[in-house]
């Protein structure tokens, strides 16, 4: 609904602007007058609470600073160090793995579920069930992982009954990151399924009737009806996932970090965890400059990817 409401509005705005260049009209003048009072407060708050701290973070990233006392200017030194730090590069590649591998898995599963759930009986209940993991605090999964996957946990007990004498070491350091990726896919799928389903539900039934009349098979229906009409929803979901995946923190922290007992193993770190440990590990002198540099790089990554995504996904909005 919002989409249909917004789209004509935007086109009116564009039309009006174009018209004003020629001769100007009363509505446009009134609109111009209202621009500052309406946008001003939001812009002010946004600048004070978000833009200014971000700019300050960029400033900090050019310094060596333990959080208090004098700052020592090092130019781009922190960035150079970051790219020379194997651990940062590993954290960065973990972030990319989360973004792309988990992202593709989430979208594939969500889209599959959407198609299955579209005309399934009891789909409202099914939808709630799928959405449920997203409501649960990541902390619970961390604790649960211990119960289920510890050497004497549920999984190994079941395997023992099934006659497996030497079960895998599920929570060994090298297995943690793949486990985190699986867990994350499971948690996130419901969320995107819900959004995609809302998009699919929006498609008026007469298109499907039309397909049936034209003798289109399931794939053709997907190709010519569902995909084009939910493309904008896909685009939005892709942007949402990009932004949230670069910030993934708590699931890694809790999955590997023994529920608050220390820091997770470095092999599971994402850039967000790297940033946090660099600034707030609590057991060594904080390196705020380095942490800010790492955070700024994450922000840059998100910005570039979002711009690229918007480019790639750009289609004319279809009104229906």
């Amino acid at each position: 609904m919002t989409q249909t409401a917004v789209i004509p509005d935007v086109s009116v705005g564009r039309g009006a602007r174009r018209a004003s260049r020629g001769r100007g009209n009363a509505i446009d003048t009134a609109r111009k007058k209202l621009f500052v009072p309406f946008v001003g407060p939001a812009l002010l708050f946004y600048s004070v609470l978000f833009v200014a701290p971000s700019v300050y973070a960029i400033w900090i990233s050019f310094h060596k600073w333990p959080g208090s006392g004098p700052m020592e200017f090092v130019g781009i030194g922190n960035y150079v160090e970051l790219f020379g730090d194997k651990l940062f590069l590993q954290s960065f590649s973990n972030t990319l793995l989360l973004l792309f591998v988990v992202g593709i898995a989430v979208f594939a599963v969500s889209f599959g579920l959407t198609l299955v759930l579209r005309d399934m009986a009891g789909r409202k209940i099914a939808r709630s069930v799928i959405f449920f993991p997203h409501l649960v605090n990541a902390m619970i999964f961390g604790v649960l992982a211990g119960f289920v996957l510890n050497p004497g946990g549920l999984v190994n007990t079941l395997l023992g009954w099934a006659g497996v004498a030497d079960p895998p070491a599920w929570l060994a350091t090298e297995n943690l990151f793949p486990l985190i990726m699986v867990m994350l896919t499971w948690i996130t799928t419901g969320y995107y399924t819900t959004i995609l389903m809302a998009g699919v539900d929006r498609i008026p039934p007469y298109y499907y009737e039309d397909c049936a009349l034209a003798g289109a098979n399931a794939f053709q229906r997907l190709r010519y009806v569902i995909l084009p009409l939910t493309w904008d929803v896909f685009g939005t979901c892709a942007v949402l996932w990009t932004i949230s995946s670069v910030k993934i923190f708590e699931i890694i922290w809790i999955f590997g970090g023994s529920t608050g007992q220390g820091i997770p193993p470095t092999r599971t770190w994402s850039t967000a965890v790297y940033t946090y440990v660099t600034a707030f590990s609590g057991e060594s002198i904080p390196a705020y400059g380095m942490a800010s540099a790492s955070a700024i790089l994450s922000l840059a990554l998100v910005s570039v990817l979002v711009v690229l995504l918007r480019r790639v996904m750009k289609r004319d909005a279809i009104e229906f």
Partner: protein
Amino acid sequence: MAKIRKLSALALISALALSATGCAAGADGGQDSGGTLTYWSMWKEGEAQQKVLAAAIADFTAETGITVDVQWQGRDSVKKVVPTLNTNNVPDLIDSSFAKLAPVLATSGQARELTEAYASDVEGEKISDLIPDAYLADTDITREGEEVPWMLPYTLTSDAIWFNAATHPELESAPPKDWNAFLAELDTLKAANEVPLAIDGDVSGYNAYWYTAALVHITGPGAMKKIADDHSGKAWEGADAVKAAEAVQQLVDGGYFISGYNASKWPAQQQAWADNQAALLYNGTWIPTETASYAASDFQYSSFPFPTIDGDKQFSRADFIGFAVPVKAKNAENAQRFASFFLGKKYQDALGTDAKILPVRSDAATSPEVASVKKALEEADAFYVQNDGITLPGYAEKLLYPTIDQLVQGKLSAADFIAAMASGQADYWKQNS
């Protein structure tokens, strides 16, 4: 236009209101009537330690008329203090462990020398006499060029090799003194079909205890800190560092650790230990309190100190928890007054008996669970702190812990561990010098 003016006025008013709240907070913290102090505590409401402190605060206010504005912040209190250090609105008094206070307060010059506190007395005894000299001699709580410590400890944590005295009375009467006797004991346990050692291998700090303790017991306190300062990393190839790594490797190769220790989540293995599924657990003085709720019935906590390795010197870990006062504190005098007040015998006894931790005063009461640790501390030749006092930015989290993890989990041999530390440290200093 009227509308615009109205809206701009609204925006202006909200901006003013926002800055006014900022000012108000500033003014609040700035009250310097001499009758208040702000204290951010590392304890959480409901903890035994918090109850002792709350009682002391009530007594302090009744006695001096100074009101204490206390906030029970929990373990992250120091992280929350850091941003305030750049403002004029710092808490007057904070407390935490030495390991957390030192990197953010002491190294950046943000901690005050506690001259008044150390010069004052409580119940007729001078504060400086209440802290055992041996602790002050070995630990870093006085900065270079200063006379008086920046920290006033009120309790300390140490570590020990814990066991159940009900099932292993022989360990209480004749604990293994040196490394070879310790290994022999582990073999005896193994031969009796017992799991000798429990360890939660996912907690890097616990893995690091083994290597740090081994190295300190070979070379002495400060050994690892000195090695960490070597920019070439070659110091890791020294005989002592290698020997300590080999000692840890002996434990791995001997198969003494509980099965699955490298693929479990804390507290699985310490639970197994408390359930008598393993004989020994090398861990901190909080273990009796932490494992009490799931320990087997009739579990009797007892411990012996980490065995000597080279020579017969016994070193004990002594990590202080105590008060510090930021340089910018406005009520620094009141803060120091409360800090010394809290060293009163009554509160020290309560910390020992109610909270079951180790009070810093040697004449304070302790609970029977930690009596063996207190004895070890009294007999120790010298003391060392967690990670041997290394506070270099990111060193422990990014280099030392991950590498020791691999040694303890059996993924690196002693030789590979040394090589990894040497090259890792060279890289570290290349980046951080």
